[in-house]
């Protein structure tokens, strides 16, 4: 693995053998992808649990909890599966710009419906 690879990218946890490539950027191993998928599956199970769970009273914590779990899943897919964690920051900026614009447009629209109609 090139020195560029080791210095430009954050270091995920190390525990397995490393293959070495002479060129290119580091991407996670297959095992790392599987671990991320297991985490995603667990979070999804927790989300669904909140829907069926009747013993605990989530109350006002329900919606923030669901949104938090959604954001974590979103982050994991974008950074690990879409490689934003390892790629050029420019790619992430392009995507984030659209995302922020979309959220902004929604909030403005919601404001219009809530306050101006």
């Amino acid at each position: 693995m090139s020195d560029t690879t080791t210095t430009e990218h954050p270091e995920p946890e190390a525990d397995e053998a490393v293959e070495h490539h002479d060129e290119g950027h580091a991407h996670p191993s297959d095992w790392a992808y599987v671990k991320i998928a297991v985490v995603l599956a667990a979070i999804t199970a927790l989300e669904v649990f909140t829907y069926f769970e009747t013993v605990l009273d989530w109350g006002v914590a329900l919606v923030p909890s669901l949104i938090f779990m959604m954001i974590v899943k979103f982050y994991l897919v974008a950074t690990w599966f879409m490689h934003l964690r390892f790629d050029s920051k420019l790619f992430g900026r392009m995507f984030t710009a659209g995302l922020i614009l979309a959220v902004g447009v929604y909030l403005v629209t919601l404001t219009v419906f809530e306050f101006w109609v």
Partner: protein
Amino acid sequence: MSADTVAADPGHAVDGHDEHATTTGLSHTKLAMWVFLGSECLLFGGLISTYLLYKTRGNGRTLPTDVFDIPFTSVSSFVLLMSSLTMVLALSAVSRGEDEAGRTWLLATALLGGVFIGGQVYEFTSFVREGVAFTTNPASSAFFTLTGFHGVHVSLGIVMLMSLFVASVKGKLTQRNAETVEIVGLYWHFVDIVWIFIFTVIYLIPAD
């Protein structure tokens, strides 16, 4: 070097996989895909916003939220989530030059996408049977438009995956042009991300 980071990035123009140097040092194709995905955020942002604004407007008729089948949709969501894993494994395999494994994972991804679409067709059909059709009320129109557009995106993704599979069978998809797999993968993961959002905001968060 981390143990979890092993494979080379097939989509980076300066890593030797791409013959054409670019002024940014980045693959223009990949950059274009990211710009496209940024614009797609606006499309789905608009559709999701519309649904959230109209979700309680039933005009006295059945709302989509009244007929949601959360267990069924949860399974569909899980299937789509796992298709992201198979997609990234396909890219990983093709990047290592393991064409056979790459084809297997591409096919698995397409099949999981097909299962998701099949589930959506079943869901739409059962909604119509229960009195929630496209024109029933503003809420149903917004719901079918949003999830329908997402379904079209998944379907297009399946077409792209099958195109890659066929190209691989013909020997036209190798380690050298693994960036193509990564570009399709970005699109596929984006479709998954959108569903992550839809599943929580539309299905799981209570309507009122």
